[in-house]
């Protein structure tokens, strides 16, 4: 069984510091939902508020339509997988997995049976008597998942559970997590600062910055149609060109930047005179001139060959370079360091957004 989770204008304050500012969202039952943001953005605070370790200063948390105010973490239909897993080191694998059942007064025989089922599910059959210290990182990960699933939660909360693993294992575990979620069919709420994890696993993603939810959408929309300057700069690589809107209509805007007037889509409906940032992704830029309002030129600072891609870095407006990623099939010759180079893009791939905070590099 799975339940949806609703946040209704949830604000969490620690003294004078506002960790989460009026978050409102509606996670559907059975959804794989991720919170993505840099550390300190408030995503873990949201998770702890849903699991009941924090009481919101304002607003309401509802799980399965029921208000959770005053209900402690041990009474909520949620289970949390901790960043460091928080497995009990003095218990065996089976004792860990069945701890939730033990405190619910389930008898030993039923507990053992359930443990065997779950060990099967996480592909560790017959390893129930092992101590925690005998398990590998990946195995511990799976035991933590089994322990959380054993209490049959309606919502599983995951707090960056893969961050302690090495890269290869992390990618492998992404698939496993997704597989498990499809098998058990309950709601997963996943916290991460790793956009790769969020994009590959999630049905929908909420991007957060400084306690504010910037955008809630599926991965493709987040990448292609970022709603704010923060999302555009945080998710994937992006080249920002700050300036002022000089002409705008419903679909397009012309932004006056240090590199001339540049054209881009205008989804937020900015008007003439608004401060704006025009974003063009590195892979949308190409070497060589195009139409005058989608072409700019700058000095090449360096060139980095990366196998499938070649990155060309040009002098940018501020500290940040302009990056152009050239694929192998491109026939254009790569310019030398110190040369002036013209670069251009398709007008539809430029995106003008209202000025706002960018993600820190």
């Amino acid at each position, binding site marked *: 069984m799975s339940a949806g989770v609703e946040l209704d204008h949830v604000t969490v304050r620690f003294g004078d510091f506002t960790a989460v500012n009026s978050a409102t969202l509606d996670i559907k039952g059975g959804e794989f939902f991720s919170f993505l943001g840099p550390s300190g953005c408030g995503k873990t605070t949201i998770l702890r508020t849903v699991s009941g370790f924090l009481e919101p200063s304002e607003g309401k948390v509802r799980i399965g339509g029921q208000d959770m105010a005053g209900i402690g*973490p041990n009474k909520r239909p949620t*289970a949390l997988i901790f960043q460091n897993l928080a497995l*009990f080191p*003095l218990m065996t694998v089976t004792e860990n997995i069945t701890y939730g059942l033990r*405190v619910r007064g389930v008898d030993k025989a039923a507990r053992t049976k359930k443990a065997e089922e779950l060990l099967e599910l*996480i*592909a560790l059959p017959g390893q129930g008597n*092992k101590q925690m210290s005998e398990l590998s990182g990946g195995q511990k990960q799976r035991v933590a998942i089994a322990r959380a699933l054993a209490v049959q939660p309606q919502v599983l909360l995951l707090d960056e559970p893969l961050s302690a693993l090495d890269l290869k294992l992390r990618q492998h575990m992404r698939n496993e997590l997704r597989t498990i979620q499809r098998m058990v069919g309950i709601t997963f709420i996943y916290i991460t600062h790793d956009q790769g994890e969020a994009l590959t696993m999630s049905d929908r993603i909420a991007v957060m910055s400084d306690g504010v939810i910037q955008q809630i959408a599926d991965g493709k929309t987040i990448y292609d149609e970022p709603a704010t300057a923060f999302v555009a700069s945080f998710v994937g690589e992006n080249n920002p060109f700050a300036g002022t809107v000089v002409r705008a209509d419903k679909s397009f805007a012309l932004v006056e930047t240090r590199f001339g007037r540049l054209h881009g889509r205008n989804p937020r409906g900015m008007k003439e005179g608004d401060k704006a940032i025009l974003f063009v992704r590195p892979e949308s830029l190409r070497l060589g001139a195009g139409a005058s309002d989608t072409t700019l030129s700058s000095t090449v600072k360096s060139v980095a060959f990366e196998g499938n891609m070649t990155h060309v870095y040009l002098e940018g407006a501020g500290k940040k370079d302009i990056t152009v990623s050239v694929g192998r099939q491109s026939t254009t010759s790569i310019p030398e360091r110190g040369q002036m180079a013209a670069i251009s893009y398709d007008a539809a791939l430029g995106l003008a957004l209202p000025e706002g905070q960018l993600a820190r590099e």
Partner: protein
Amino acid sequence: MKSAWVMKGMLGFYILLFFLYLFGPLIVMGITAFNTPSYPQAYPFEAFTLDWFVKLWNDRNMMQGLQNSFIIGLGVVALSVPAGLAASIIMSQIYHRARGLFYLVTISPLLTPGVIIGISTVIFWKDVLGVTEVTKAIFYKGVVLTILGQSSFISAYCLLIFMARLTRFDRAQEEAALDLGASYPQVFWHILLPYMKPAIVSAVVIAFLSSFENYNTTTFAILADKTLVTVLAGQVRQGTTPALSALAVIIIGISLFGAITYEILKRREKKRAEQAQKRALVAERGDGQGDALPAPSSA
């Protein structure tokens, strides 16, 4: 190079001297326990005897004192270990502005001369227990007062032992148990207490030993009763007999036995942990291969 050798030699000589200082008096005393003269004498060694041990066994005062020492030791353990544990938990939860004062109060008995602890215990409890004749008759006794007096500083030892272990406790485990549905008392019994077990064992041992060998506080609080140490003190004050050396030999023997057992147990545990680590390393190599999950059938 030459100076390094000199340094090394000097260091070795110094360590030798240090341990000679530490053990020498005890060894000399040990020898006197087996020598026949009635004045404890190590040299000349006249003849081997075990008489002094027999004499010790027949000393009723000492046996009475030993019995009281045991009772007091057990009482102190029963009082200070729970008190130290409770204080270590309250220390982590107490209102932050009161923490410093609370720490100072609970740790102050360690810096207070034992004599003063003994005196204040007697003066205070004499009047408190003296409020009614019944309490006075039942509780105003040397053994009770000694347990109270010793507990005041032995609880502080326990507190320090527990605090040291608590700082390394991963609070996420507490939260994990709660999240799985445990109540707060269940978290205490299932998670915190097992975690604290090694510290509790140490605290029990240290509390008992400190109680057993205490003199300064006990000599005031014991009133008309006696413990092994106060009997000893009385005998040492009166004169010297090899029976005291015999007692020391027994005590040293027991502590050596305890220390060696402890060392063996520790080594065995270390070996076990190393083996577990090895198995984990083997498992690590298999990570992400072979035992992967089956693909979802419906998708």
